[in-house]
């Protein structure tokens, strides 16, 4: 038996061994993160909605029209305080959005990058005249398995770690954001409604005002429109609060099932996690609808 025949046999043995090893890795890492990606992508987009913060910061300026000039200095100082908070509020939202976009990127991976490498290896293999067709196929298959199983395994491992260490601060940040929205921004918008109502009540009801039916009817109409705008802002803020609640619940689910992250959205966990995604999608759609 010649030296080269022995070596070729040894190579084939190693190729088979590696193929089995990598196949086992590939099967264990045969995970699809489609549902995790859907959730993370949706959460990233929804969390970054900036209309609520903008409304809050602009409120003092907007309210000048409903009060006498003697209150403008108070409104100016409130505006300055809110503008100073703007960066922190943005940071809160952007951190949530960035985290979710990061999770999305990790869940999606970019296999095209690896596929390009595999095409290169394939091209090299075709030039490698010392291997017969079967051996070329074996080496090509090994590279493909290696790439796909290792990246899936790596992504799964990193996602488990990321979700595990992030859930607690994420829930804390969402709780803080929800307190700001519900206890602060919504309550403040209710102040705006009260300001609007009293402004038009003054026009229509103040003692000694001359009775002018046309002006009264117009004031009534404008009052209703202004109150409706304020109500729209309140509904937007509450819709954003629902979005935050959906993100918190979905991420808690991921955390509780992180050890089987590759199976989330499939089998038993399928309907449960999909229901979290659907709730979040509905909340985000409502937010976009009421904010138009």
């Amino acid at each position, binding site marked *: 038996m010649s030296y080269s025949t022995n070596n070729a046999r040894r190579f084939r043995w190693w190729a088979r061994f590696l193929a089995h090893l990598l196949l086992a890795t590939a099967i264990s890492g045969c995970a699809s993160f489609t549902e995790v990606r859907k959730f993370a992508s949706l959460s990233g987009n929804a969390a970054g909605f900036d209309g609520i913060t903008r409304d809050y910061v602009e409120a003092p300026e907007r309210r000048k029209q409903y009060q006498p000039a003697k209150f403008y200095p108070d409104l100016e100082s409130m505006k300055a305080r809110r503008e100073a908070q703007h960066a922190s509020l943005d940071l809160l939202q952007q951190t949530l959005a960035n985290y979710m976009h990061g999770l999305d990127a990790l869940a999606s991976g970019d296999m095209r990058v690896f596929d390009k490498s595999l095409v290169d290896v394939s091209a090299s293999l075709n030039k490698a005249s010392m*291997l017969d067709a079967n051996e070329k196929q074996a080496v090509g298959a090994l590279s493909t398995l290696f790439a796909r199983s290792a990246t899936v395994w790596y992504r799964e491992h990193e996602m488990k770690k990321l979700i595990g260490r992030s859930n607690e601060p994420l829930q804390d940040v969402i709780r803080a954001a929800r307190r700001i929205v519900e206890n*602060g921004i919504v309550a403040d918008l209710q102040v705006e409604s009260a300001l609007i109502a009293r402004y038009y009540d003054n026009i229509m*009801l103040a003692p000694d005002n001359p009775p002018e039916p046309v002006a009264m009817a117009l004031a009534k109409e404008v009052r209703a429109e202004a109150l409706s705008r304020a109500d729209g802002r309140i509904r937007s803020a509450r819709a954003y609060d629902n979005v935050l609640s959906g993100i918190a619940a979905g991420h808690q689910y991921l955390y509780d099932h992180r050890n089987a992250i590759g199976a989330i959205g499939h089998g038993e966990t399928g309907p449960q996690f999909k229901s979290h995604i659907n709730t979040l999608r509905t909340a985000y759609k409502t937010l976009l609808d009421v904010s138009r």
Partner: protein
Amino acid sequence: MEPLSADEAFELGNLLRDTAVALGEWRVGHQGSLTRREWDELDEREIALLNSASAMYTAAIGLVLADSEPALARLQSSVKHAKTAIGRIAVFKQALDLASALILFAGAITSGNVAALPVAVVSLEDAAAAIFSSAGSDD
């Protein structure tokens, strides 16, 4: 006196707002018995109360933001961690190229086909060069 907590500030804001609203309802309900001057004076009190409520909410939001800083810092560290993990996938691609080139190289050597070696060597050198040039660009 201890400083207000965020929840106390929110509560105080609600109290100011609800008082202003109740005052407004009383004013409208007693419209017939109020002079213009009394009406205006009450109206100004309401505006002041409503603005104070807004200022209280602004302060409370500032307190929540301050309280959430540690959690936010931890989450930001997680975001950095995610970015590093994604970055490592790019580095991993180089490891993959190197590994694939090594498989090709090993195949060329074990088959004993000397004519095929240059292709495998070039592939291996390319993979290694990519890693070195990437490490150099990071410096």
